[in-house]
């Protein structure tokens, strides 16, 4: 067994995600190299076998996504990591994980898009895609990281949510977070709060693999542990068998949606910074939230009552956290390294409460504190 990495380390965001995964109990990683996510693979190629886990580099991202689903079904927590082009490719199998309720974590270290785009530049262009990238209505959770220690803790959180709700969780990182090095205190294993999937506690004959508990979440058996069952991407009944019965189809969809809806309090995470008395606020996520924090500070220095709501959970959209900000502020600035993706959500939930102002940057450059404080001052 490897020595416990309970110590302060200087890590890149990507490395911290690898460590977070290991800390969360992830023991299977399948990936395909891509800038700027490759370090996650490289770290785990090195570390996984030391933890008794498995690393495999597959022939492409489609295969990586398939493999982590397989591993998760065999009872092992699993992850893959990619960037835009690979994220496009995994979508079909990601949808399978949503439909068959297979816990797994997918990291997308965003780079400039569309297409091959700007492989080495930061961007936040895949936000709506993380929600809508695969076909059909499906539940999903999307989290964003902004610091290296976020990378560590949010990855653990991602695994926990994934296991708890039997839903794939997407972590959106970006090139800046990915390659920034900061110090992280890696906790001892016993200090890490871990949620594992619920195993069936009925005899195998009684086991219904898709019968929800009170919260709509089915207990999950692993292949090989005596609960022989069927997994499919077709719409299925409680037994996991394909159905074309409208009532059963409806149940299927409703449970998938409701398990997430019921979990809102646990799933929705944001951070508030100086919002108590704010008249203008920034709503930001990812590395932009860091610039935003500085901008708030600088605006305050100029006498402007500014604040920041940092979104950690992007989807389900944390409406209940955002609405109060919209209600209490005169104006809200939504800076993003894209053409305006989360701002659409903010606009959707904004019932004419306040002015929602977009600030977008798509030239491959980071959004600086200066440009934000300038805008804040003019709001």
């Amino acid at each position, binding site marked *: 067994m490897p020595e416990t990495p309970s110590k*302060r*380390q*200087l890590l890149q965001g990507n490395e911290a995600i690898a460590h977070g995964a290991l800390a969360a109990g992830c023991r299977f990683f399948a990936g395909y190299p891509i800038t*700027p996510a490759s370090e996650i693979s490289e770290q785990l190629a090195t570390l996984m076998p030391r933890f008794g886990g498995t690393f495999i580099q597959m022939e492409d991202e489609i295969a990586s996504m398939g493999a982590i689903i397989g591993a998760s079904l065999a009872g092992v927590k699993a992850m893959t990591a990619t960037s835009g082009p690979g994220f496009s490719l995994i979508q079909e199998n990601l949808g399978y994980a949503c439909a068959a309720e297979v816990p797994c974590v997918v990291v997308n270290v965003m780079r400039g898009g569309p297409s091959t785009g700007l*492989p*080495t530049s930061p961007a936040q262009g895949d936000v709506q895609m993380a929600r809508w990238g695969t076909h059909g209505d499906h539940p999903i959770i999307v989290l964003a990281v902004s610091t290296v220690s976020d990378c560590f803790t949010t990855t653990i959180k991602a695994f926990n949510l994934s296991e708890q709700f039997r839903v794939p969780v997407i972590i959106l990182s970006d*090139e*800046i977070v990915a*390659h*920034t*090095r*900061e*110090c992280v205190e890696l906790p001892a294993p016993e200090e890490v709060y871990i949620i594992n999937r619920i195993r069936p506690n009925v005899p195998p004959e009684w086991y219904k693999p898709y019968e929800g508990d009170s919260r709509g979440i089915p207990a999950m058996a692993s292949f090989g542990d005596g609960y022989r069952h069927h997994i499919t991407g077709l719409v299925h009944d409680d037994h996991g068998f394909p159905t074309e019965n409208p009532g059963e189809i409806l149940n299927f969809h409703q449970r998938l949606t409701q398990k997430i809806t019921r979990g809102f309090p646990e799933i929705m995470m944001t951070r508030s910074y100086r919002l108590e008395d704010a008249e203008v606020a920034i709503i930001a996520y990812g*590395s932009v939230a*860091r*610039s935003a*924090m*500085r901008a708030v*500070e600088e605006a305050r*220095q100029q006498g402007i009552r500014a604040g920041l709501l940092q979104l950690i959970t992007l989807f389900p959209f944390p409406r209940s956290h955002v609405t109060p900000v919209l209600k209490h502020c005169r104006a809200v600035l939504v800076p993003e390294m894209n053409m305006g993706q989360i701002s659409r959500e903010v606009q959707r939930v904004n019932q004419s409460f306040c002015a929602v102002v977009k600030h977008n940057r798509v030239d491959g450059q*980071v959004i*600086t*504190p*200066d440009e934000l404080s300038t805008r804040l001052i003019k709001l």
Partner: protein
Amino acid sequence: MKKNQASRYEIRFSGSGGQGLITAAVIFAEAVGVYDCQFVCQTQSYGPEARGGRSKAEVVISDAPIDYPKARRLDLLLAMNQAACDAYFRDLSPGGLLVVDATLVEQYPTSRIVAIPFTTIAKEELGREMVANMVALGAVGVLSGHVHAASLEKALLARVPIGTEELNQKALQRGMTEAAKVQLDTLPRSIFNDDEV
């Protein structure tokens, strides 16, 4: 937990790809962050790997958590060649210090400058041009005044390939010694002032 810019100290290591500047910055950051337990952020400009070109790496040090991770106004710029020196010296804050490799930089854009022939030292005294970055690292360590020598050494030993410890250590020491000779307070303030830039 109010923060202001004053608590930040920003360094950029610059030169050409292959000079090992990212390694130097990482070791510096590790010394400051892991061994000195300060807040630190290390970033770099990231290009298609292994194919040369300009290279830069930054370290931001602070006594409070660091929000914006990139350097905005450099307190110290290390320029290991002329191109980097020319491209970046304007990012120095008034009073910021320019440190150049005297072997490769010929024209100095400011007079608040420390010029040490890192490459020559590495090549001629240590026998390996490759370790010029470690010589520079030692110098930057001392000149920044933001890291303990012992921490730098520990960080270096943890990061360099097995078998090269001694050489690298020597290089670091050489840089420190060289920098120790510099009397920072005798240097003029930058010739350019804030609003000129």
